[in-house]
């Protein structure tokens, strides 16, 4: 994994656009100024966050044998991993389960 992360850092297109991150930061009402280093670090941290969230969810998820990462794996991570708990609002598990059952029903209907 470490190798992969290194490779990720090397590729030019792997980086998130700093300008967009700045826009998101500035949308926070109390923030007035952000220095270049803080902006760079937040961008970098977001990249690490995406990697960490994806990998944690994949490793703890149900799709590991099949080699898949699905939404429910992310919702599970948000619920069970303390550092990802701030995501429970945007990764709701209950709604997902309902949606999932609905989509299953639809699929069955489609089959019949």
């Amino acid at each position, binding site marked *: 994994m470490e190798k992969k*992360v290194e490779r990720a850092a090397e590729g030019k297109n792997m980086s998130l656009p700093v300008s*967009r991150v700045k826009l998101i930061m500035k949308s926070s009402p109390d923030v007035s100024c952000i220095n270049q280093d803080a902006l760079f670090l937040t961008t970098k941290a977001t990249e690490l966050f995406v990697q960490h969230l994806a990998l944690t969810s994949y490793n703890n998820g149900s799709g590991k044998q099949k080699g898949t990462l699905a939404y429910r794996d992310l919702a599970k991570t948000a619920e069970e991993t303390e550092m990802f708990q*701030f995501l429970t609002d945007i990764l709701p598990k209950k709604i997902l389960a309902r949606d999932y059952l609905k989509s299953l029903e639809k699929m069955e209907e489609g089959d019949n």
Partner: protein
Amino acid sequence: MAERPEDLNLPNAVITRIIKEALPDGVNVSKEARRAISQAASVFVLYATSCANSFAMKAKRKTLNAGDVMSAMEEMEFERFLPPLREALEAYKKGQKGKKEASEQKRKDKEKKNGTEENDKSREEEEDEEQMEDEQDGENEGEEEDVEN
């Protein structure tokens, strides 16, 4: 300022690439999962910003600095990011510092290169000229048509 809600999303292509790099080869990531991760990343930025901002406010500063972001990571229980972030920041600072020198050096190198590769360049230029002639022919034809009309 963000004028449209989409402005607060991060580019999907980059997010997808970062996810793919983090996971073992060949893992299939559903579209829903990708969108969720992208949204989570935006929320992460906001969360980190508000944490960092509270550190800046405590110190009675108006500008967020690198230390505030680092403290925010600790507060958010993302201590594991601190070593790679420190490394990245150091490399970034070096890069910023060296940028000026590097660009000057590049210019010098280029001048030298231009000196030695003049023959190659003139050949390239000949090819360019041929292409340009073709294009010009095309344009002339167009003009003639205009005149006829």
